[in-house]
């Protein structure tokens, strides 16, 4: 039979044993362990002297006895501008200034390779990409305008909304493309602007008759053709094409 160790018996006394049932069962059948356990119980039944009863007002007297040397805390107003904090803040500012100066010097010293690559060609590519998108939307609007003129009744509001959205963009592009550098594009955008103005600023809801009138007066078929040609030009993968070549169309 495996007897319980003294440590196990002490743990059992304090109800800290891992397997309480096993210990209890063992104690019932093992007189030797039971005797040791009884000794532990007897030992721990000997109590130390209890603290003497304190007179009423003990807490108050205790406070009075220690109160004098205690300095009141200063209201917890945080001192943000203590010397260590100021030094730290100064060091941070200095590091920031050095980093900024170093950065700007380095920027100046390094070759402007990216600038060189991005300047004219890249800009042109971006402009063409945006312009192509604008022409695409305008082409779709003109196609819808053509269809609307063939159908009876009022024209869908979305046509006017789209025209209003295209109008400010078109104005910007027209101003950007000067008549000198690209007269065909400039003329087409100017023509488009007038059509867009007419559609966007129509006071009432557009009817198919109104659309037919606009088509007729402003020659939108011709404009549509021009735009298709210009789109084909702007969407070409080779951006080096001289825009003046478009004039031969």
């Amino acid at each position: 039979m495996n007897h319980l160790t003294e440590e196990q018996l002490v743990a059992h006394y304090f109800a800290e044993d891992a397997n309480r049932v096993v210990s209890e069962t063992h104690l019932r059948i093992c007189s030797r362990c039971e005797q040791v356990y009884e000794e532990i119980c007897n030992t721990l039944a000997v109590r130390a002297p209890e603290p003497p009863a304190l007179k009423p007002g003990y807490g108050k007297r205790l406070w009075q006895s220690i109160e004098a040397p205690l300095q009141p805390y200063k209201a917890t107003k945080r001192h943000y501008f203590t010397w260590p904090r100021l030094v730290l803040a100064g060091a941070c500012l200095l590091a920031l200034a050095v980093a900024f100066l170093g950065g700007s010097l380095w920027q100046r010293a390094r070759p402007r390779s990216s600038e060189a690559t991005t300047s004219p060609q890249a800009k042109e590519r971006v402009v063409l990409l945006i312009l192509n998108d604008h022409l695409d939307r305008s082409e779709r609007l003109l196609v819808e305008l053509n269809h609307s003129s063939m159908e009876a009744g009022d024209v869908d509001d979305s046509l006017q909304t789209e025209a209003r959205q295209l109008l400010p963009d078109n104005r910007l592009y027209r101003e950007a493309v000067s008549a000198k550098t690209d007269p065909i594009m400039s003329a087409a955008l100017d023509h488009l602007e007038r059509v867009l103005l007419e559609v966007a600023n129509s006071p009432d809801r557009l009817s198919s008759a109104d659309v037919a009138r606009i088509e007729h007066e402003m020659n939108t078929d011709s404009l549509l053709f021009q735009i298709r040609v210009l789109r084909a030009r702007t969407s070409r993968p080779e951006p080096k094409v001289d825009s003046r070549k478009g004039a031969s169309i």
Partner: protein
Amino acid sequence: MAAKTVKNPQKKLPNGRGLLRSNTGMRNSDQALIRGVLAGDKEAYGVLVERHGENMFRVAFRIIESEADAQEIVQEAFLRGYRSLAGFDARADFGTWIYRIAVNCALQVLQKRKAEGAVPITEEYDEEHSGVQLSDGGAGPERLLLDREIEHRRHAAMEKMTEDERLAFVLRHIEGLSTEEIAATLDVTPNNARQAVFRAVQKMRRSLTPLWVKS
């Protein structure tokens, strides 16, 4: 056998069980008082002293077994508590915090006693504060003599314990703290706390068992 056998000792244990778990209302109130103290209201600390003073005295006395030393420990604990209050973690429980300070103060007194080889005040039997509680019935001269011998041996065993063993023993057996609470209070691992309690019980048993055999 003179001593009364304790069959269900666990039921007698919780002298101070739950001591480290003060109720939420008191805890919130303590927090408010601490904020007051830190805002410059010194008197608010007086309320905390009045509220926790008796508990501190009780534990100090049980560890040190001397009324005068216990009084000093309580004063020292509250003074230290006041000075360290700015570093008090607002999420913690003030009762537990000051309790630990008191235990540490008691530990220092024990260490000082050992270092100086001082004879504790209660080394000699003090009839007034005789803590032996084994008398069952008539207290004849023989019984009184035995009680005196038991107390003498109990006290001697306490003195033989190391500071950690003594603290762990008092906190576990008399204050009724759990092993984890003792470990946290003494800043040791739970296993070390358990071992300290065991060694303390072992020393106490070796000191007292001859009396059971004799009687």
